[in-house]
């Protein structure tokens, strides 16, 4: 008996050591075969645990990907920080690893490819409970000496690790919408070139770049640290340099670290003082609305949605500059933003409609057709979804319906 008990204790200790968060490991070249080779996160004992120095972040308005929930992280070498840029993605140091893990709530019971729409679970202290959750894929963007590299990993059936899939994959899932409708769809993991399809935001240089890691997407109350703006928090924890000005009350913040052991990477953020600083970031930095925040104007919500979902291609230099449609947030409303604009190369993607936006008439606007349809040659974005984002479509339709004017 005594021997058996000792053995059990030893076994648990041995396993616990194996799954304890380790320091992230940067690979300067090659494509490691497993996600675990990067030591960013550990899936074990019913939880996905981020390693020390792996910082979760989220966006005011995210890209839609078939209702998948996304856990985003950024990891930088110790003592280094990203350099602030007001419009483009921040300039991250060599050695940075950005991860995005796509997962779904399941509908309960044995896994049978059934997934549900939200809600987003809370990520407490870098731990995502995996009960009732299915991990699908984790995409890495890795900043190497000669630029960013995209590396896709697909989670295994056992949900213990994700495996390199450079050519992508297709998975048949069934989406259960909140009103009970069930809809089979092909969840598509992009291949490495398709990663570039979005992340090579300049189609001339074709250098890959993060998309979400821009001031206007990150400028929001932190989801992971109470009472502080996410960008202020990055500045305070020395993750971001060169931002317009230091946030107020920095000196009042506790310098003590909340948890975690030594790491070669950026330390977990200091916790805010008892009196949280005002959310000063919101005015200092460009800012996108949350597309679901009804206290924001319809225009701000629609523009934020179109920015997050379209402008990485539909810009002045992106792969979709061939269309003449530019959906970056500062572009004034006019033909370049879709007003009464004829399509250039849509084919059937026009949906039989004449103009991108017909003021007051969403049902006559190509925008709405492109977003509603799931036909591969017609839909927008071209990649990254197989279902229609009904709530996003409703927002854009409402925005167009509220417009005055006509196409003469």
């Amino acid at each position, binding site marked *: 008996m005594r021997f058996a008990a000792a053995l059990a204790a030893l076994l648990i200790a041995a396993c616990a050591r194996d799954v304890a968060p380790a320091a992230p490991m940067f690979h300067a070249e090659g494509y490691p075969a497993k996600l675990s080779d990067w030591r960013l996160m550990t899936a074990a004992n019913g939880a996905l645990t981020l390693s020390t120095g792996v910082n979760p972040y989220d966006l005011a308005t995210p890209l839609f990907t078939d209702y998948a929930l996304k856990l985003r992280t950024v990891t930088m070498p110790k003592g280094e920080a990203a350099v602030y840029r007001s419009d483009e993605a921040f300039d991250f140091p060599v050695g940075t690893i950005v991860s995005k893990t796509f997962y779904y709530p399941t509908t309960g019971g044995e896994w049978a490819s059934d997934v549900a729409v939200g809600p987003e679970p809370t990520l407490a202290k870098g731990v995502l409970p995996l009960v009732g959750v299915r991990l699908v894929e984790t995409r890495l963007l890795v900043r190497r000496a000669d630029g960013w590299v995209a590396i896709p990993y697909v989670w295994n059936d056992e949900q213990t*690790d994700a495996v390199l899939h450079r050519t992508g994959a297709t998975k048949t899932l069934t989406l259960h919408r909140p009103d009970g409708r069930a809809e089979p769809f092909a969840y598509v993991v992009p291949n490495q070139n*398709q990663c570039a399809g979005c992340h090579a935001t300049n*189609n001339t240089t074709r250098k890959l770049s993060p998309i979400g890691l821009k001031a206007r997407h990150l400028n929001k109350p932190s989801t992971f640290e109470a009472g502080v703006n996410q960008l202020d928090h990055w500045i305070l924890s020395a993750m971001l340099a060169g931002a317009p000005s230091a946030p107020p009350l920095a000196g009042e913040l506790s310098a003590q670290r909340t948890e975690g052991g030594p790491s070669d990477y950026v330390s977990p953020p200091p916790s805010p003082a008892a009196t949280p600083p005002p959310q000063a970031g919101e005015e200092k930095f460009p800012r996108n609305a949350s597309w679901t925040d009804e206290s924001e104007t319809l225009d701000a919500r629609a523009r934020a949605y179109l920015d997050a979902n379209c402008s990485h291609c539909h810009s002045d230099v992106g792969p979709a500059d061939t269309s003449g449609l530019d959906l970056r947030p500062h572009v004034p409303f006019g033909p370049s933003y879709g007003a009464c604009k004829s399509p250039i190369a849509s084919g059937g993607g026009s949906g039989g409609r004449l103009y*991108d936006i017909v003021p007051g008439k969403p049902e006559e606007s190509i925008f709405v057709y492109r977003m509603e349809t799931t036909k*591969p040659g017609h839909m927008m974005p071209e990649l990254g979804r197989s279902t229609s984002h009904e709530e996003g479509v409703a927002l854009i339709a409402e925005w167009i319906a509220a417009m005055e004017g006509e196409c003469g």
Partner: protein
Amino acid sequence: MSRAIRTTLLSILALAACGKKEAPATGATPPASYQDELMTMLLDAKPGDVIELPEGKFSFDRSLSLAVDGVTLRGKGLDKTVLSFKDQVAGAEGLIVTANDFTAEDFAIEDTKGDGLKVNEGKNIVIRRVRVEWTGGPKTENGAYGLYPVQSENVLLEGNVVIGASDAGLYVGQSKNVIVRNNRAEKNVAGIEIENTFDADVYDNVATGNTGGILVFNMPNLKQPGARTRVFHNEVVDNNTKNFGAPGTAVAGIPAGSGVVVNANDQVEIFDNDIKGNKTANIIIASVFSTDLSKDGMSADFDPYPEGVYIYGNRLADGGKNPDGLELQALKLAMFGPTGALPDVLWDGYVDDKKKIDGALPGPLRICVKNDGAEILNYDGPNGNKAPRLVTADHDCEIEKLPAVALANGVGG
């Protein structure tokens, strides 16, 4: 049990217990298929590589993509190596190339959900003896473009066959220095379309059974307008297929039975072609005002007028006998009677008054027709077709001829 043995046993047990949780992902290995094989070759290609595509028919459920410069994709023949996208679930094209110095030859792409082969911003592009086909014949739900180089430079399309595109079979957009020759475009809405492109030579092609044979267009809101296209020594015959383009697209307004169509483009030379049996008109010259485009949807600097169009030495026959659309039918009946035909050249009559000097356009901006026996009809678009009239004599003029396009960097050499 000795201590040593017990320790060993313990280690094995420990390893086994933990190993179970960390089992490598056997189930996640992708199934071996030609799709994965070819995708991997495209990902791993190095400049100078020739990727040989074997004989046979291969199925793909996602787009292929190439982003490495200097790669050649070579099949065993446009009827022998077939990449089929009938089961495609994702991707807006069959093959998307974002690279320079690219050559594609001797294979076929079938039934893509969107475009067949798209090259976005490539320099030195050769596509030869490639077939792109929608095998169910002309249908609105077919993909838009067959071969689709856009924002590219030094482009050669030769010996290709494109059938069934719901927009244009061979489409060159926003490009510079282009040769399109010896291709066959059949049963597309537009057979061959040159759009917002500088310096294109289109010759020795056959365009037949399309809605419109060869189009030279300029569209608003783009980075460059187009100019200097020569269309010569082509066969543009019997392009009478009912327009199956989706409304809203630039080609959806093309009447069935259009031979060569110039819209808003400048410095276009049309000569030495056989243009026959196109039942609306063998040649149509029009401005953007004759399209569905909205004046509220155009960039302010866009020039909507076709200028410097020179038509000469073509063999034109049997055009205009049964024009598409009520307006043109009525026009034909009123002017030429039930057994007559519209003239070989139709023009919508829009002129940019701001460019006139002493009441006339300067010579290089005129529309000139010096073609034995060909008449030109101004159908008076600006006044709602109220006073259509033959204006052949007014357009009996010449424009300095354009030089031949010379591709650089040894392309096509």
